């Protein structure tokens, strides 16, 4: 039997919950989706280990997109927001020390990127990039402005719902995840081919952040809560996949 350590092997990804590789209404997936089935094997040290991201790698304004690109005394245009949440694994344990990197469009729906050509203007006070490391309870918080929806070349008239890209690095390379956070009540969510790559409505709902009045800063910023679940391990060696390759 494959040796089972106390922490257990990683649970396999639920490929019916996750989007499929080929989702033809999202055109870019057609030529970039593997056609052969994925090959499974039990996680080994190569998958179960990962780099450590100390808080010392993170600058004091890295989590504050309102201030980290703005000229002195100025701030970006757009509704001020706090985006916060907790990162847990599938067993419900908080994931401390997780690296979270975010990127987003400005309030007009324009990204600060060399390949971006949308006619909405850049905001001289908004870079759209942030990062942080979760605390000992797995919690994180960003200050930002509400990104705008924007059109993109896919179908003849596709628009992305307002969203924030999230990149997550937990404790193991096997936990690596990139996803997007959407905003409660946005009618574009149901129309978007990228969101539509996810088949299960409950899975889509897991990416829709609700307004969180309890964390709103009166006369300053509204708050949205976005909790994230990274892959977890089997709890006991007994549960491990022991059948190998």
């Amino acid at each position, binding site marked *: 039997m494959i040796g089972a350590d106390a922490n257990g092997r990683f649970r396999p990804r639920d490929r019916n919950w996750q*989007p499929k590789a080929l989702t033809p209404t999202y055109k870019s997936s057609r030529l970039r989706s593997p*056609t052969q089935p994925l090959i499974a094997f039990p996680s080994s040290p190569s998958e179960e280990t990962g*780099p*450590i991201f100390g808080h010392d790698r993170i600058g004091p304004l890295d989590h504050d997109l309102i201030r980290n690109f703005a000229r002195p005394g100025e701030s970006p245009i757009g509704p001020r927001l706090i985006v916060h949440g907790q990162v847990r694994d599938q067993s419900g344990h908080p994931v401390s020390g997780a690296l979270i990197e975010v990127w987003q469009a400005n309030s007009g729906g324009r990204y600060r990127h060399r390949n971006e050509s949308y006619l909405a203007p850049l905001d001289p006070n908004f870079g*759209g990039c942030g990062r942080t490391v979760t605390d000992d309870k797995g919690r994180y918080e960003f200050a930002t402005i509400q990104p705008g929806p924007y059109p993109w070349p896919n179908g003849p008239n596709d628009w992305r719902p307002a969203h924030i890209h999230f990149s997550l690095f937990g404790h193991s390379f096997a936990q690596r995840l990139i996803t997007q956070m959407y905003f409660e009540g946005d009618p574009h969510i149901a129309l978007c081919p990228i969101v539509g790559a996810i088949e299960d409505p409950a899975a889509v709902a897991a990416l829709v952040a609700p307004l969180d009045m309890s964390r709103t800063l009166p006369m300053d910023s509204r708050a949205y809560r976005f909790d994230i679940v990274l892959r977890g391990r089997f709890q006991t060696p007994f549960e491990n996949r022991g059948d190998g390759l």
Partner: protein
Amino acid sequence: MTGRQEDVLRESPSQTAGPYLHIGCTPSLEGIRSDGGDLGREMWTGAAPRDPIEIHGVIYDGVGDPLRDAMVEFWQADAAGAFAAPVAGGDEPSCNGWARRVTDPKTGLWQLTTVKPGRVSWGDGQLQAPHISVWIVARGINVGLNTRLYFEDEPGPNALDPVLSSLRPLRRDETLLARSTGTARYHFDIRLQGPDETVFFDI
């Protein structure tokens, strides 16, 4: 069986990294940070490694065009087969084993300077052949793709490697071999589709 399955939370669904991942992951390339603070620039911190190797590669789509907007991440053991140990107090390990590269916007090429990793355990006394874990995200990729880079010039360890051995009957093991192109130089192409489609893993 234990009923515990019902207590397990669902992993957050993945979404594509999209075409603008550089803003968040390599912001200095977009002029957003000028302090060179991008994470994962170097596989090693501190003194330069002894016996460095250089690896190049291109990721091709289903019609053979290079992906010019992808990000590749690498995770590996050091030359002795040890992974970077957790360090208390947020101190930085001198060898972090992790790096990320974005593909060149014109050619699609990525380039990594590292050391050849040592052999790591498979968990039952077996050793794996030297390899680097690879993770690929890009526009059009809904869930990040996991694969492995092995080395063509390690035939002995490769022959015994449990992952490569499982692929040999399928005649797909060679898609994971980086080709030797000179002294301490390797080339590793990844093909997302086609007859030589790279093996991707559900790990």
